[in-house]
């Protein structure tokens, strides 16, 4: 009967609600536009060592939504430290994952989540006016993406090999500092990545990027490249205004939330043709109501384009992991069954039954993912003469109707400077299901 202790232990370990279930209350507060309270709610929830990556990144996102940019960056740094630390996974955890469930494994973030840390940390620094520190993040993105590309060599199948938006963001961080050649390299990398994104995630090459490539290649005297882009893009009137005195406004619209993982029971067959019940995660997308955003600034109107789609990237990443995940789940289910059989033979039918129950109870899908990321990012940029402009956003729905109008604080444009304005919009609380 000592087995009962073991079973109790197993039950305790899996007793806590899954990560995505715990998130519900935080999300409710976020939808009500109360990030400060969501932060407090999040601190109240139980924390596990295995989920510390998610704790830090979620905290960082809530902090930036509440305007606490320096604190947010401290949290992002803590998340980066977790990634470093988990680079060599401890064997104890892996044994746990093989015999209990995937959720006991420390979560170190999907590749796209690890890159997103740098994107949002850089945006925090930009909001604080610390462009040199944003540049540090730009360099770190490059290091991370290089490591990712290296890892691809043995695994050609991976769909996420470059991060188009982070390349685009780093390009204009370099541009702000007057580092034209670095900016040009980053713009090119962004362009190459977006061509792949078009196929993999249905995110087209942003029109703004085309103008940037034309503008900068012309400025740098890269005539052949400039002509090449002209032929490829066939833009009616490229934005080549060389008004050196003009400033620029950049709008980033973080729309809705990333998809959430749910658990699903499926039946698979092992190599002997025996049916096994396993629990698999699947993604549930959030409602997408905004198709694009119009930025009204002074007398000008500019429309956003989609530059990043976390929803599509997350889904593709999960699809990628599925075969390995199923193989692991089958192996684990067989192990548990074998243990139960052995217990039945040695300690009687009841012991076997208890272990079987414990095996089923502890079999839950790993539903962890970075939930406070947006569903997607919309982007616009516009060159403007220095001055202060009133600004508002019109959110355009899927049918072209105006869903909502948001008044923004006045925008100060300075000569030769970029002014980055951001809006996180999670949906209209009243109408969100």
């Amino acid at each position, binding site marked *: 009967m000592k087995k009962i202790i073991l079973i109790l*232990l197993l039950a305790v370990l899996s007793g806590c609600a899954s990560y995505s279930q715990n998130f519900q209350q935080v999300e409710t507060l976020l939808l009500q536009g109360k990030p400060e309270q969501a932060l407090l709610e999040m601190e109240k929830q139980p924390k596990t060592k295995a989920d510390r990556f998610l704790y830090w990144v979620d905290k960082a996102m809530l902090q930036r939504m509440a305007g606490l940019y320096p604190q947010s960056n401290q949290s992002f740094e803590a998340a980066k430290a977790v990634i470093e630390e988990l680079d060599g996974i401890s064997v104890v955890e892996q044994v746990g994952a093989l015999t209990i469930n995937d959720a006991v494994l420390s979560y170190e973030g999907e590749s796209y989540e690890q890159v997103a840390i740098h994107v949002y940390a850089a945006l925090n620094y930009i909001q604080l006016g610390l462009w*040199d520190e944003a540049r540090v993040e730009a360099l770190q993105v490059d*290091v991370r993406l290089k490591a990712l590309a290296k890892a691809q060599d043995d695994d050609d199948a991976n769909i996420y090999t470059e991060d188009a938006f982070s390349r685009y963001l780093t390009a204009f961080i370099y541009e702000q500092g007057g580092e034209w050649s670095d900016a040009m390299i980053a713009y090119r990398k962004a362009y190459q990545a977006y061509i792949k994104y078009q196929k993999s995630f249905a995110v087209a090459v942003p029109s703004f990027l085309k103008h940037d490539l034309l503008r900068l290649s012309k400025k740098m005297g890269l005539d052949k490249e400039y002509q090449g882009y002209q032929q490829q893009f066939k833009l009616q009137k490229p934005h080549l205004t060389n008004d050196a005195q003009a400033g620029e406004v950049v709008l980033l619209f973080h729309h809705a939330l990333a998809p959430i993982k749910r658990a699903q029971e499926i039946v698979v067959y092992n190599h002997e043709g025996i049916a096994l019940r396993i629990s698999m995660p699947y993604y549930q997308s959030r409602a997408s109501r905004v198709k694009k955003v119009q930025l009204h600034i002074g007398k000008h109107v500019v429309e956003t384009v989609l530059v990043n789609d976390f929803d599509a990237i997350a889904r593709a990443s999960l699809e990628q992991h599925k075969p390995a995940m199923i193989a692991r789940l089958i192996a684990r289910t067989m192990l548990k069954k074998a243990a139960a059989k052995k217990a039945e033979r040695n300690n009687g039918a009841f012991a076997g039954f208890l272990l079987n129950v414990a095996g089923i109870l502890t079999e839950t899908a790993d539903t962890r993912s970075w939930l406070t990321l947006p569903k997607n990012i919309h982007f616009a940029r516009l060159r403007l003469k220095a001055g202060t402009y009133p600004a508002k956003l019109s959110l355009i729905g899927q049918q072209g109707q105006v869903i909502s109008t948001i008044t923004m604080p006045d925008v100060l444009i300075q000569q030769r400077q970029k002014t980055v304005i951001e809006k996180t919009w999670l949906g209209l609380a009243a109408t969100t299901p």
Partner: protein
Amino acid sequence: MYKTNLKIMMVAALLLGLTACSSTSVNRVDSDSVQDLSGSWNDTDSRLVSANMVRDVLSRKWLVKYQVKQEKNPVVIVGKIRNLSHEHINLRTFIKDLERELLNSGEVEFVASSQEREAIRSERDDQAYNASTDTQHAAGQETGADFMLQGEINTIMDAAGDMQVKFYQIDLNLISLKNNRKVWAGQKRIKKVLEKEGFFR
């Protein structure tokens, strides 16, 4: 039966190990001791680089030339040092290290930084109203700096497998405020080789 007990205990211990709590212990160490944890820029680097570069700047000819010609020590200020590296480096401690080394050398005079100046000016404004006339200090008697120390920190990273090489290059320039001439350019390089030791990999 003993055997079964032992097995169950071991499994329990293993599982508990997964959820075990941790405690913090603190040891005080000499702040001059070298402790490399992550391979990132740390207090030792900051101290060594500032000491090394200040020694260099003070051993060059510009200083003697100035002292002979002007018959006084030059007045120096530490200006902007840009971090162009891969890491978020605490530039404030680095600048403070530089300032301390320069000041304590006795070879140069030092004026307060622009932030410190603001605070002192507001105190002087306050004195003008509130302090007795024989103790107050008048405005317009500040010492202007002759030279400004500027610079940047760059890094080159390279990694393959478990090996990582970090290369830091710190460039500092001393520029004359009178005519923008560079009187000294110093460079210090640090190369760090990191080897990640995976646990049961």
